[in-house]
């Protein structure tokens, strides 16, 4: 089956999912390293109730952005929107799967805005982030 693009969509259509492994090294590259920092200091993370440093929630927005750039192309890089709520922490060593399902299309300007329901799910099947993303089709 062809990979769906923003030019040929139907409501309820699923986008190809992405799988992201998140080792500490990736978190360090994303967030930087410093003491008393919940993203890089394991002892500090434990004092806040987490068994490992947290991946920055913004990393999940980047994963959704990747999925949407593949789906909507230039219509996401220029004119795209993304809105997410982070509902469960993502820890170093977790694996996320990023999902998207086309939810709505509506006219906007001379084109069409295609809205996708998006979410990230960890290796235990728990949702960690939920929201919507959209791009413009000409």
């Amino acid at each position, binding site marked *: 089956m062809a990979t769906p693009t923003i030019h040929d969509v139907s409501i309820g259509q699923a986008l190809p999912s992405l799988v*992201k*492994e998140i080792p500490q090294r*990736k*978190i360090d*590259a*994303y*967030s930087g390293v410093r003491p*008393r*920092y*919940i993203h890089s200091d394991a002892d500090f993370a434990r004092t*806040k109730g987490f068994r490992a440093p*947290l991946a*920055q*929630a*913004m*990393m999940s*927005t*980047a*994963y959704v*952005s*990747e999925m949407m*750039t*593949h789906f909507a*192309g*230039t219509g*996401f*890089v*220029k*004119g*795209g*929107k*993304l*809105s*997410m*709520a*982070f509902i469960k*922490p993502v820890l170093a060593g977790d694996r996320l799967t990023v999902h998207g399902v086309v939810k709505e299309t509506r006219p906007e300007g001379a084109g069409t805005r295609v809205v996708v329901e998006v979410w990230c799910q960890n290796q235990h099947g728990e949702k960690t982030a939920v929201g919507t993303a959209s791009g413009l089709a000409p």
Partner: protein
Amino acid sequence: MVDFPRLTYERLQVGEEFVSDTFLVTPEEIETYAFAVDDHHPWFFEGSPFGGPVAHPTLLGNQALRLRHSRYTVPGGLHAKMEFEFVEPIRPGMRVRSRGRVLDKYERRGKPYMVTEFTTEDETGAVLVRGRFTQMLFRD
């Protein structure tokens, strides 16, 4: 000079404004970001339909998210919500700056939250990204 007092819920003022330093978007920054999030789309390195390479749309999110660090020592916190609108592509060679304003602060289940709206602009003042985020503050 900036004094960097410790950020507390009580000290934070709704309507307070922040401005980041300028940041030069370099190919190395884009490469580091690509490594961090495992996204090596060719538009970020070779060229794009916009003419030349562009950066990941979310590349500058941390510049906005860290606006409060331009004035305060921040005890840390958790990121609750994020909204982005990608207005124009971010390109290597741009010098970018984010501006933000505290829209709201509130307590929920005994935890303090702040809501900030932001824009990120290039050196000509053209808006590249705008959005809003909600952060929970650690009390210490």
